[in-house]
Structure formats: C-alpha cells, structure tokens
C-alpha cells in the first residue's frame, strides 16, 4: 500500500490532444513523451531508436512542429496538440499521399524509421509544397534510416508533393 501512495504522489495529471482525440492521463514527471504515447496511450506507431534525440524515429508533430518525443517529458506536453503516424490516414481510412508515395516508391524496408520520416516529411510539404530533391534531403537529414539509402524516401516525398499539388489544384 505504501508503495502505491509513494507512486501516486509522484504522478501529475496532464491533458493532451493526440490525433484529434483528447486524453487525460496521470504520468510521472520524468516519463518521456515517447513512453506516454507508446505505453499509456498505446500509440506504438511512434518508434524509439535511440532516446538521445539523434535518430528521429520518435518524431511527432506537437502544435504543428516536428518534435522528438524522446526529448520531451510527458508533462511538457500538457495541453499540446499532437499528431502521430496513426493520425496521417484520413478519417475514412485513405492513406496520406506520403504514405502512398512511400509505398509506390519503395521508401521503406524494415519500416522502423518510417513513422518519423513520414512526420518530418509531412511538415516539410506543409511548408514547401514543391521541394527540390536537395531540399527533401536536407529536411529529412535529421532522421536516420539504416535500410533504404534514402533514395526511395526522396522519390517518395517527391511523388507525394506532386500528388498533393495536383490535388490542391
């Protein structure tokens, strides 16, 4: 019993919006946002590859900006608006053009870096609908991929950009 009290004393209640859904959860202040998403909210699409902010696998968007969820504490995400890979598909289950692009252009192999890549690329295309290959490479340079050699990813983002521009027209 004492154990429980000690634990619950440490807990903080936070409210956050993830993929348009609101959650209120109790978390220890030291718990990483990546763990909150994965272990408490069971949104395991966001991956953890390094926990020191280099690999980018845990990238999500928080209030519209790409963020490494392993470098943010859950408590810091109180009141935040978060989108994870699970939020990319449209309500009716249609894949995001980036997801289609990755599929079409062989932008993934093991798929572990993919959620982070998608979230980073998503932010790029929101701000630059017609990026050059060089710009794409620069935008994803904070996300490590060990499988693809990036070429398929660059092709995929190009494909998606085109698709999205055509849709917008």
């Amino acid at each position, binding site marked *: 019993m004492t154990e429980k009290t000690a634990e619950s004393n440490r807990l903080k209640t936070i409210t956050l919006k993830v993929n348009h859904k609101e959650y209120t959860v109790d978390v220890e202040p030291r718990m990483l946002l990546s763990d909150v998403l994965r272990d408490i909210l069971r949104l395991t699409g966001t991956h953890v590859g390094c926990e020191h902010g*280099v690999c980018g696998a845990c990238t999500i968007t928080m209030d519209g900006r790409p963020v490494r969820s392993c470098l943010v504490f859950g408590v810091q995400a109180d009141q935040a608006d978060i989108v994870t890979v*699970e939020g990319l598909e449209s309500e009716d289950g249609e894949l995001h053009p980036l997801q289609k692009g990755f599929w079409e252009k062989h932008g993934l192999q*093991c798929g572990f870096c993919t959620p982070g890549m998608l979230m980073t690329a998503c932010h790029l295309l929101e701000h630059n609908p017609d990026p050059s290959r060089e710009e794409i490479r620069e935008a994803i340079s904070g996300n490590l991929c060990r499988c693809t050699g990036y070429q398929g990813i660059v092709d995929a983002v190009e494909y998606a950009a085109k698709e999205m521009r055509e849709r917008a027209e």
Partner: protein
Amino acid sequence: MSIGASLKRLEDYNLLTGRGQYVGDLQFSDQCEAVIIRSPHAHAIIRSIDVEEARGFDGVLLILTASDLPDDLRPIPMRLSPDPILEKALQYPLAKDRVRYVGDPVAVIVAKNRYMAEDAADLIKIEYEVLPPVTDAVQSLEPEAPILHPDAGTNEMYLIHGKKGDAAERLKTCEHVLEEELYVQRHSGIPMETRGLLALCDEDERLTVYGAAKVVHFNHQLMARLLNKNIDEIRLVETDCGGGFGPRGEFYPEDYLIPFAAMRLKRPVKWIEDRLEHFKATNHSREQKHRVTVGFDGDGRIYALRDEVFFDQGGYIRTHGTTVPSLTQAMLPGPYDFSDIEIVTHLVLTNKTPVGTYRGPGRFEGTFVRERVIDMVAAHLKLDPTVVRERNYIRPEQMPYSNGLSALGQVIEYDSGDYAETLDRARKFMGWDEFAGKQSRARQEGRFIGLGFASFVEKSGFGPWEFAEVEMRPDGRVICKTGLTEVGQGITTTLAQICSDQLGIPYGDVSVVHGDTALVEKGNGSFATRGAVVGGSAAWHAAGLLKEKLLNIAAGQLEVPADMLALKNGGVVYAETGQAAMPLEELLPVCSDLGISLCEKYTFHIEHMTYPYGCHAAEVELDPDTGALQILNYYIAYDLGKAINPMLVEGQLIGGMAQGLGGAIYENLKYDEIGQLVSGSFMDYLIPTSMEVPEVTTEILENYPSPLNPLGVKGAGEGGTVAVAPAIANAIVNALQEYAIPITSLPLRPERIREALKQMKPER
C-alpha cells in the same frame, strides 16, 4: 508473370500506418521489465556483488547474478562453423568471475517498469579487481599480453591456413613484388531498432518468446537446450524487425536471461535494449589487419598473393564461430585468377565487444584490401587500374572456377559469370575513357576530382536446405509458410511473387507466414543472402507440387491430359491457347469433395553456394584544404542471375551502398587504451544521413542465371555494401595522383586526408 516484376510490397501497409508490431510494441498485462547490468571495465575479476539494498527497492521483483543461474548451465554455443578449439572462449549468459569487455552482462534486475529497474540498478554494488586490458589484435599475440581465457592459455584462438600452389616460391620468381599493410576498422550493422525480447511463462511452465529474428528455429532449439526444456514447451515468435544486417537475431546472453527470468517470475518479462547498451552489447564486426604481398609482371598480371590477417574477435567467441575470418580468406581473391595463394588468418581475442557478421562479412574487408592492392599494382606500373583488373579476371570459359580455398565447409567454386562485363559497363557509364581530360580541366579550376573502381564477387544461397509449405484454401487464397524470416528485405513479397507465378493467382492472394515455431515446422532462417535462393526455391517447388496436383484433378474433370493445361488468371486454362478451362472457384469445391488436401511441403537442398558479382564505381571531389569528400557520381553494376522483384533488388543495392559508405568514411567503434568504447552513441558513431548518401545508379543484370536453383537467382542482399570502400578509396587516390598518399586504412576520415595532404609533397 509476377516473377521479374517490380511489384509493390505486401509488407508496407501496416508499417506505413503505424500498425507494425515490433517487439517493443507488445504489451501484456502484469508485464514487468528487465535491465541488464553490464561491466564498466574491459577486463576485471568480479570480487563481490551485493544486491541486498537493490532487492528492497520499490517495484523490484527479481535480481539475478551468475550464482542464481543453474550450476550446470552451459555457455552459448556456436551456430555456424563451430570448432571444439573455440569452446574455451564461449560466453555464459552472465559473467561468472571475470569480465572481458565493457558491456559484459553481470546481473539482471527486473522491476515493475524500466524506470524503476534502472533506479534500483544504481544500488547494486559490484567490486571489481581491474586487470590490464588488451585492445589490439596484434598486441594481443605478444608474450606479455594478458590472457583473456586462462583455460584456453592463449589469445590466439584459431589459425586458418588456406593455400593454393606455392605462393612463397612463386613470389621469388616475380618481376615485381609489393608489400602492404591494410586495416579495416570496427563497425557494425546498427539497425534502427535495438534488440528486444518479451517472454511469457504460463502456469504449466510453457514459454512464449516474442522478438526472435533471423534464425528463429535454430534459436528455438538452443533456447530449449540451455533452459533444459522440451522443444514443444517453448514457442518463439518473430515480430516485425527493424533491420537485421547480421547482428540482429543471433543468440545472445539475453536470449537466455529474459526467458529464464520469466520462468522464475511467472509473469511476462520484457527487455528492450537501449541504444547505448546496443553499442556495447550487440555484435560488432569487421575489424582486421592485413599484411599483403603480391607478385606480378610488368603487364600487371598478378601471380602470387600472400596475406597474413589479424582478426579481432573481442572478448568471447559468439555464435558465428570462425565464419567471418574464414569467409574473409576464402573470398579474398575475388574475381581474379591468381595461380598461387597463401593466406593465414589469426583469430585473436581482445577486451572488446565480441564480433559476428555484418552485411558482406569478410567480403567488405577483403574487397577493400584486394581492390586497393589492384590499384597499387597499377600505380606501381603506371598502368590503367581497370586494365590491370581486366588482365587478371577469371574468364567465363574458366567457369566453374575454384580458387582452391574453402569456407563454411565448402570449397569456393564460382558457378558462372563474366566479370569483365560489369567493369566495362561501369567504365562506360562513368566516362572513364574521357576522364583524364575532365580531371585535368577540373584541376585547372582548382578542383580535385577522381574516379575509382572496385570489382567484387559475392556469395549467396548458403544451404544446406530451406523449407516451404504452400496451401491453397477453399476460398482460393494461398498460405505460404517458410523457414525464412523477414528483416525488412521484403521476403514476404518475394515469396508471394514466386507462389503467384506458379499458381496463376495475384500475388496479393498469397499470405506468407514465417518465424513462428508453432506455425512453421522447420527452417534455417534469413542470413547470408540465402532467402530468395534457398527459401525461394523451396517455395517454388512446393507451389509447383500444388500446381501439379491441381492440374491433375482438373485434367480428370475436363478429361484432357494434364500437360495440356496450365494455371493462369485465377483458374485452369488450356496451355496452348490460354483459353479458360475451369476457374478455381469450380475446381476447389471438387477437390474438397474428393477429400484432397491442397497442401504441399518441400525442403530444398543445396550443396553449393552461388556467386553474384559486379562492379562499383565512384567519382569524388576532394577539398584539399579540409579533406572533405563529396561523391559526385556513384554506380553499381550487379549480375544476380535473375531478379524476382527488381525494385526490391535496387532497394537492397542502394541501402547496402549507404551502409558500405558508413563503413568507408564515417563509422567507427573506437576504443581507448583502457578498453572503453568511446563511440557509444549516435553523437559520435556517425551513420550516414540523407546528406551524405549520394544518388546511386544501379544496373541490374541477369546474364548468368545460377545453374544451381530452378529460379536462376543469385541473391541481392550484400553486393551493394562490399565494394564501396575501395571504390571511394581508389577514387581519392586517383584524385590526388601526384601526392602518393597512403590510403590503406578505413575509415577514410577527412581529417586524415587533410593531414596526409599537408605532409605529402606532390611527387611531380
């Protein structure tokens, strides 16, 4: 026909939508988490371990040290190329009285979650008596070096001696002789997902272990043996796997410890390796020194090759036994016909993380050594290095060709191929004939550009067998069970294409089941680029048997001979005209009425490996002030007999190239003199990003189908990796011809190039 088509992968939908199931994604109620406590010293005696305080800590459920493990526990045995001589240096799941590398597991602590387990870990007090470490393979052989395994009595655990003809004699008669020392640094696969396991033990002591990869069935047997259980009391399940590349999926200490902890606690125990831990705990690879001597004539024809290799094994022998050193030496001659060869490889222990395979094991290292030497021979004679290559290639009419050396229990025998053709294509694509002019024009503008080539022969299709079971369900869907595993290479799609081709149904109608010991009866797994070759052939045959069966039944129904029929477009057709004869919807109910099982199994045996080959070419530009290197153009020609899915092959080549590039320029698992790993995070272990990996042009050739399997395939997994370092190194040397800078070791760091440039005055 779906074989040969660049079809989209069946794997991708789940992975793209966050629905993948990697081991870290699984969660069971009541699950707890383990943390492994590892040695902070490279070499030390364990004096005492005091766990009392930690035991009383909040949330702690179990603490294990070596004394808590069964007395009769045996060390982790070798999986490949085992040898009794090596047994004295095998690793136990927990260090007993001595630690031999930074990261050697000493204790396990299980708590309600990882946060708690890590807190409690700080309270475990371990007293060490630090011993002098040895961190260099050559020094480790010196008489005063500390001995790692007193039982073995020596740090030189093994000596491999390969010989063809008499190289020493031959060298005496050669017009020219060149001697060089070359070095390849320690680096490894470093998949983006670290290792992990989740073990469950039920009331009846039955274990289910998630997180297996690569060689699931082998590890299943091993786990049962080490845990003293019957094989049917354990189920191993492969999850999605975030990259294999060799290190992932071998049997490590944790593969014993986590199931053992689950058995003790009777609740699910999860362990996810963290990244810093991964750098210390998971197999390293590659580190070796070569002392090469070659003898040749004035035309660049090389007659004799002698090499003494010092292979740094680290603190223990792991599951690969002698695989890497023996592949190094057996594949060292590559595509060339040398009449006299002698190679001696010393497998040496050091106080560093133990090593295993990494994509292109032995060939990455050997290809660097050999292809640098070819360019050195050319430089020595002032000849065109591509011409020197040409003069030494094994010619197609010499096939099958054996270089007289052996590895993995078989003599190397190249089955078929035309090595000169891939070089020719590379020269053409890169504009080699006009390059000298381009280079001197660039130089006039103050730019240093260079072009380098590297040829290679790969091996694939390691046997001895693989298993497949193909079943057609009443709804026409096909289940293909395979002994292979998926590590991101796309084996699911590949096998679906093979079944689809045989059975005339869309590849999307094939579900591939793998890596579950409860569902697939046997298998050898995915390593050594054996998937498409051995596993693909098994699936081809199993599906072929099913096809025959279906056609025979249809023939009975249609009252025509079976050989007039074929399967196509989801039904039986007349072979000659392609005209529909009977759709599957009609045929399948007939089969079920007749009580015929539509399930066929096949075990495909293969005695010899097969050998894809190719050529890499790199054009680089160097900044003489900073030594920075830019890759302007990169090309790979690769002949693999037959590509089942060219898009996936290209993906393998380009992805492989990026890993080769890491090994060539950036990655280094570096130790200081007291044996501390100083590149233990992504801050200092540099994996190439999208800014470093150039656009790569690949040309996939299918000129020499393998005669050893029905598909003619030769495998695509490793050829992208193995020749990157020498192609770039040769390009650097070519860019700086007049400087005579000694490019003999990896990685090719800019600071080294810059230093060398500062010190070397131009020769002319």
